[in-house]
C-alpha cells in the first residue's frame, strides 16, 4: 500500500485518503461556453509520468491537499497545501 505524506498529519496509509483527480484545473465560470465547460468537466491530461493531483485525507484531518506523483511507478514526489504551486524540486515523500 502507498504511504502518503499529508501536509497536516504526516505519513499515513493510502486507504485513509480519497483520490481527487487532476490538480490546478481552471474552473469554469457561469460565463463559460460549452467548450470551456467540457474542458473543465471532462477533459484530463491523464499524464503518464510526473503529474499533479488532488487528494483528500478522508479518514484523518479531512482536508484537501495536492501531490506530485509519478503515475508509472506510483511514487509520490512531494505533497503540498492547496493554494501553493507545485514544488519543482524532487523530494522523497
Amino acid at each position, binding site marked *: *500500500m*502507498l504511504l502518503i505524506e499529508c501536509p497536516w498529519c504526516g505519513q499515513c*496509509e*493510502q*486507504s485513509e485518503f*480519497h*483520490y481527487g*483527480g487532476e490538480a490546478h484545473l481552471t474552473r469554469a465560470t457561469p460565463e463559460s461556453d*460549452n*467548450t470551456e*465547460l*467540457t*474542458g473543465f*468537466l*471532462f*477533459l*484530463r*491530461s*491523464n*499524464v*503518464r509520468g510526473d*503529474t499533479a*493531483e488532488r487528494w483528500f485525507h478522508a479518514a484523518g484531518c479531512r482536508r484537501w491537499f495536492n501531490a506530485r506523483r509519478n*503515475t*508509472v*511507478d*506510483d511514487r509520490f514526489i512531494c505533497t503540498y497545501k492547496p493554494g501553493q504551486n507545485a514544488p519543482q524540486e524532487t523530494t522523497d515523500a
Partner: protein
Amino acid sequence: MILPAAKCGACNMQRYSLFNLIRQSLGYHRGWQSNWRTPAPKDHYDIVIVGGGGHGLATAYYLAKKHGINRVAVIEKGWLGGGNTGRNTTIVRSNYLYDESSALFEHAMQLWEGLSQELNYNVMFSQRGLMHLAHNEHDLHEITRRCHAIRMNGIDSELLTPRQIKQRVPMINLNARFPVLGALYQGRAGTARHDAVAWGYARGADALGVDIIQNCEVLGFDIQNNEVRGVHTTQGLIRADKVGCVAAGNSSVLAAKAGLKLPLESATLQAFVSEPLKPMLDSVVTSNTVHCYVSQSDKGELVIGGSSDPYNSYSQRGGFDQIEHVVGPMVELYPVISRLKMMRQWGGTVDLAPDRSPILGESAVSNLYFNCGWGTGGFKAPPGSGDLFADSLANDRMHPILQPFGLERFTSGELIDEGAAAGVAH
C-alpha cells in the same frame, strides 16, 4: 518429413482441421507455419491501426475481410495482446441498460457466437451464463428495471430468486453480511480465452495481407494542415491516409502527441487467479454492491476481479488494499474458498470515460480516429468494436451504432451513463 498443410482457398493461411491435424502428425508436427509474419513496415499504408490488442487486431481483420482494404498495418509497441487483452477476467456479456450500449454490445455478442468458426481459431467462447447479484431492496429494483430494459431490446435476460441462485451455485452463502436477494441473469453471457482473441484475429488479418508490426512504438504523428499523414515510430516514419488509435490505457498519451486531450483517466484494474480446483462453479457470478466477480477457468482456477484501484496509474501493478477489498466479500459470499491460495495477480491499465461508455469517433485532427474508453469492460467487445470501427474507417463516417459514442457527447451532454446505471464501473 515436413508436410505442407492444406491451405484455405482465398488466402495463404494454414487451416486448423482434423484432416490437417492428422496430416501434420505424420510429420511430427514440424510442418505448422507460424500464425503471422514479422514484416518490416512499408512506407505507406491506406490505414494504420495503433495498438495490437483485441480491438485493434479485430479492426484490421474486418477492414481486410469485409471492406477489401488490405494495405493496413497494426503497430504495437510491445507484443500482441500484451496489454488489457491479456490482463482481464475474460467475461463477455451484453446486458446493458441503455439502447445505445445494448446495440453495441449485442452486436459484439452475436459476432462472438460465431467467432471460432469465422477465424478458424478456437477462442473457447463458453456461454455459461452470468449472474449479477442483488443484495438489498435498491439492487432488486435496479436489476428488475434493467432486466425489462434489456428484454425490450430483444436480448435474453431473466431474474433469479435466491433459491434458483443456490441451485446453480451451491457454494454461495445467501445469508452473507449483505444477503443475496436475487440476481439478474444472462444465459448467453460467458467467458472466452483472452489470448486466443488476439492471436486468432492476428492470424486472420495477417493471412489477408495486413502487416502486424510488433515492438514498434509510436513517437508522434505527422500532421499537416490539421490532417494526419502518418505516424513517427521507433522504426521510422510510416505514412498513412487514415490512422486509428486503439490504445486503451495509453490513449491519452497518444492523443497528447497529436496535441489533443481526451475525456479519459487511466487506472489500474487488478485480477487474480487461485490454485486449480475441481469443477465447482459453472457460471460467472458478479456483484456490483460488494464488488467482486468470479468464474472458474477450464484449468480449474477461480478467476477473480473487483473494482479498479482508486487513483490514476500506468503501473500495471495495483495496491494490496484493493486485493483485500475483493477477497473479503469473496470469502463472505463463498466461505468454502476461505483457505484457497491465490497463485497469480496482475493489473491492466484501463481507460475510464466519465460516463463509463466507450469513445469511438474522429478527433479534431482530420482522418485521426480514436477507439478508446472501454474502461474495465473492453474484453466483451473486440468483435463488435472491430467490425463497426472498420466499417467507419472504410466509409469515412461513423457507423450508425457508433454515432452516439463520439467525442461530441461530452459537449452536447448526451452522455450514455452506464456508470451511473450500474452504480460502478463495469
